[in-house]
């Protein structure tokens, strides 16, 4: 029944993995930008910003990404807004990634010792100046490992875009399995490709973390 050779399977999976990579990059870059804005809203003064950011984060972290994608694509379609799949996927993934990154980064900013805020304000710096010159440069350094670590989740999260028609790695795996009925070969490859994409990210996050710990040993 199956006209797939093992090479066909692997080739098709690898081709579809391009989507996985592309979607990951888009959501990570976009999510980083939105997440940054969200971070400022979250830790900023005033009432509206933090409240908005908190609700946003609760919403996007509290519902399955699958449903977010579904609603972004079909839900808007229901209101006559015809969003192309790539746009819906991009936007949903970006918003989802942003919620997590903002939360990760908030932890980093808040881990900067209170003394840094006090010292910089006693030198006459304003809020934005403190952020720009004192807090963020330090927070950024400790943020790198958990951020890279989270990128693994993003890579795996892109699998859910199949609900709106993307044939990325996971979906290709399902399609090929349903054509070949060889789940072990196919899912074995799928797992392997995911591992090859994710493991370097995990590893570099660990290495960065170790480096930072060494650099901060003397504090």
């Amino acid at each position, binding site marked *: *029944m199956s*006209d*797939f*050779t093992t090479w*066909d399977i692997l080739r*098709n999976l690898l*081709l*579809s993995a391009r989507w996985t990579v592309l979607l990951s990059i888009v959501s990570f870059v976009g999510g980083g930008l939105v997440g940054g804005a969200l971070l400022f809203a979250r830790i900023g003064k005033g009432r509206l910003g933090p409240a908005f950011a908190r609700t946003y984060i609760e919403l996007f972290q509290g519902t399955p990404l699958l449903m977010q994608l*579904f609603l972004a694509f*079909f839900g808007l*379609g*229901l209101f006559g807004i*015809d969003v192309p799949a790539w746009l819906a996927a991009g936007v949903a993934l970006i918003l989802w990634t942003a919620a997590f990154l903002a939360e990760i980064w908030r932890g980093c900013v808040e881990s900067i010792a209170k003394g840094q805020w006090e010292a910089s304000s006693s030198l006459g710096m304003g809020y934005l100046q403190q952020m720009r010159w004192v807090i963020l440069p330090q927070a950024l350094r400790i943020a790198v490992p958990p951020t890279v670590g989270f990128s693994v989740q993003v890579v795996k999260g892109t699998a859910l875009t*199949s*609900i*709106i*028609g993307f*044939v990325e790695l996971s979906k*290709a795996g*399902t*399609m*090929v*399995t*349903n*054509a070949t*009925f060889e*789940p072990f070969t196919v899912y074995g490859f799928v797992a392997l490709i995911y591992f090859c994409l994710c493991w370097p990210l995990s590893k570099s996050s660990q290495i960065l973390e170790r480096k930072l710990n060494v650099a901060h040993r003397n504090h």
Partner: protein
Amino acid sequence: DALATIEAGKVIRIAVPQDFPPFGSVGADMAPKGYDVDVARLIADKLGVKLELVPVTSANRIPYLQTSKVDLVISSLGKNAEREKVIDFSTAYAPFFNGVFGPADAAVKEAKDLSGKTVGVTRGAVEDLELTKIAPADTTIKRYEDNNGTISAFLSGQVDLIATGNVVAAAILARNPPKKPEIKFLIKNSPCFIGLNKNEPALLAKVDAIIADAKKDGALDAISQKWLGAKLPADL
């Protein structure tokens, strides 16, 4: 009016399955193929418009239709009263030779013998609807995401029996597994229908006409022979 739009735009968008052989699956080039795909081609040809295939899953095929991202769903849809409230169905375009299959030593001859047994089925497929109707109350029905899940569950012994199309059963046999599925009994022949949005009488009439023609001129029979290995039943 969807038909007018299709004819004006010279393109029809049809949702087809990609994980439900023999109705729709992919070839080595990842292009969709199968009974439903051929029917989609047939309809596009008869309308004289370009065909745009949209691969779908059981979870998103109806939303695609409802948000007008496709004009038709040809995805081996079974019909029930609830579904008819939401979308319209054409006349039947495909038979569904499905039955309950199990290992030789399973003593099952009819629906009531399923009592106490565990049966695997693909969620939302025609056989799921039918089996749910006819199986005794104490039958455990396990509903998997796709055919592959159903087959894997059978081969790994997670279920005693499966309800599926005979072509799928043949696919299992072709792999020469330790556990060979034998037909136990046929589920009432439950045909498949093409789904389309409500309030599109022109399109519905056109699709029905095309199917009627295809039944007459043998085009549908050829598709049936090709993918199901059987003649189109006369009563369809």
